[in-house]
């Protein structure tokens, strides 16, 4: 196929050699993934494309990027998006104060031309996350977190980086990444991201883990908990997620619940009173608690 980047070509060493390796290495840094997620991460690396991760809150979207960084030993560069984040915060900024100092120091000689070329050099450039990722000496992991919180203009800024891994600074020219960073964008879908941005990424919908995987996660986090109790915990949480609640319990809350049971010294099995008393660990809204108790038949 003409024009295709063949994997591991162009001197770009792949981070992972197989889907299994992705699973094992993420596993080794304490992040358990489903086969589907591992496949997508593997592809994002091989095809050299950014990974757009969407999904409910608390399923580990941000953690995925951190885990990839930890597993590959790469530095994690993070751009936390918020309303009003701009070019100067995301890309680069000129260090005006330092430039002024330079101009004052140079007042006697040299002349304007020399000075003009001098103050727009690397020395006076403050790299922000996006530029830092492009100029990183080693292959980095770039995390653009909660992109949906940022304004639409930032997306335009990202397009050049996501498709060509380069940044254009008018005074310096175009800087191209020596090592293609592994880019992860996360979104909670409070705003629709533009098609142009979506088209440049591989898409991964990260959902709540299935029962087996979540049991494994709990086992990893709270190893002291009895296996049968663990199963009950996870099945309870899955049932709660099926109900239409304002805020479904996330994976972190499952783990909290397991810890609660351990702290309470529960050994045999959950009881109704126990669940009723501690439902607040899993559910954060009073009306959710009321509805869940009704649906699970926990009133009496």
């Amino acid at each position: 196929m003409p024009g295709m980047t063949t994997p591991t070509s162009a001197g770009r060493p792949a981070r992972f050699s197989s889907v299994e390796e992705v699973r094992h290495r993420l596993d080794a840094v304490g992040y358990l993934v489903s086969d589907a997620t591992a496949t997508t991460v593997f592809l994002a690396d091989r095809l050299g494309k950014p990974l757009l991760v969407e999904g409910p809150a608390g399923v580990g979207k941000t953690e995925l990027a951190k885990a990839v960084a930890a597993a590959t030993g790469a530095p994690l560069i993070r751009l936390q998006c918020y309303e009003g984040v701009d070019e100067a915060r995301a890309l680069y900024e000129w260090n005006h104060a330092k430039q002024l100092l330079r101009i004052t120091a140079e007042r006697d000689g040299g002349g304007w031309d020399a000075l003009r070329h001098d103050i727009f050099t690397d020395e006076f450039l403050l790299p922000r996350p996006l530029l830092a990722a492009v100029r990183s000496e080693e292959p980095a992991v770039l995390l653009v977190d909660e992109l949906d919180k940022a304004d639409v203009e930032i997306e335009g800024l990202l397009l050049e980086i996501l498709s060509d891994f380069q940044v254009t600074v008018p005074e310096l020219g175009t800087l191209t990444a020596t090592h293609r960073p592994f880019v992860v964008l996360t979104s909670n879908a409070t705003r629709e991201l533009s098609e142009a941005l979506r088209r440049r990424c591989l898409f991964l919908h990260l959902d709540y883990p299935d029962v087996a995987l979540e049991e494994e996660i709990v086992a990893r986090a709270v190893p002291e908990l009895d296996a049968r109790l663990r199963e009950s915990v996870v099945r309870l949480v899955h049932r709660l997620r099926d109900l239409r609640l304002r805020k479904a319990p996330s994976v972190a809350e499952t783990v909290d619940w397991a810890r609660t049971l351990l702290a309470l010294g529960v050994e045999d099995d959950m009881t109704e009173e126990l669940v009723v008393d501690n439902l607040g660990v899993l559910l954060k809204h009073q009306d959710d608690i009321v509805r869940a108790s009704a649906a699970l038949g926990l009133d009496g």
Partner: protein
Amino acid sequence: MAVRALDRRIVGLGRALRGHGVVVGTSELIDAAAVVDVIGLDRRDRLREGLAAAMLRRAGQRQVFDDLFDVYFPAALGTRAGVPDPADGSPPMTSHEVRVRASALREDLAAALAAADSAALDAVAARTVAELGRLANDATTGPYSAQRALEALAPRTAIAAALERLRDAAEDASGGSGEGSGGAGGGGVGEVGPRFADRFTREELRGAVAAFRRRVEAEARRRNAEVRGVERVARYAVRPPADRTPFLLAGPTELDELRRTIGPLSRTLATRIDVRRRRARRAGIDMRRTLRRSLSTGGVPLAPVPAQRAPARPDLVLLCDLSQSVAGFSRFTILLMQALSAQFRRVRIFGFVNVCDELTETVLAAPAGADLSHAFDDTAAMTRWHHNSDYGTALADFTAHHLDAVGHRTTVLVLGDARTNGTDPHEDDLRSIVECARRVIWLNPEPVRTWGTGDSVAHRYAEIVDMHEVRNLAQLREFVGRLLPV
């Protein structure tokens, strides 16, 4: 360079996705081909995930993709191993034969459900389609019908049997009698003793049965695709994604699926409305204050004063036809507006069939997220003389009794198909509502081409108010996000 057969498949899958409203461009197809090169074809589940990552762009598209993937990249060809295939020419089964086979299959289904055995469930699905789904006369989509197979099998009836098996297995295990029955190998679903989590078993089995239905549907599509060709099946036998299901054709399951999206959708829409409101606040330059300030600089307006518009949230009045034909659409829209009620100063809801009844109390008193799907079932207070919708009388009733709900800040949304069963449309009453309100907008769940046909007076109302076609969730989202006055 010769085109590989595989690439042709991928292009076919892309075209089929486009046919179902998923935007798949050439760059997505190139990505998909690269994915196949990297992953290979030996692991079908990984191929599915990889292609989904390359071709999809949002979460709601996954169901359509999975269905189409099964058609374009089938798990098997022809009859599966271990599945008896009734010869093509064999006479149709008698109803007694069907019952016998169905009950045998139901047994196996119960065993597979109890064991939570994915491979066994697949096998049962394949046999269900082969044995019960064969049509005597080929339909346009092919010789197999999932609908028919599922009707004969009634998979829900297997839930009780599966529960029984699980209970037996649990007793065996705790009693130590060691006689393993069908479900003894079951990993995941209950093993020992009646425990707390066992109260979820029934619900979990219900979910498993729903998944089994999908397997049967996928299997029927696969078999039909072999006979009728992939493209035909992809076009006709795959359900459109939830947000493109027409409201008027949605059954209870589809409506339930739609209702699940209300929470996340209302948050997205609230953000969008917020942004629009903020934009609308920028109102150019306040000339009066700019000129007055310019006096201090000798009449030269050095510092322009930006005008500030006072933040104002509009009132919203919903006037909803709750008669049978459009009830699904109206209810969904009411629930969505309830979820968005924080965006408005005040929301009032009126339902009508042929007279109006105020529902505001019922809807707004309910806690957020509560199940209101049956709150509007009682239409007794909205009907008089007959049970057919009558827009003219309802509008007259509204202007006579409830016009005080409409003020100069009010946006009135009328929901309905404007099919007035041949009665007088009373356009004057609609006009008097328009005079009182800031905006009146009509949302019609029928396609534009049918407006004004039969007993529809949509074209006559459309001359008086803004009428928008809102056939599906995608269009409703578009309307609320872009056009709803905020």
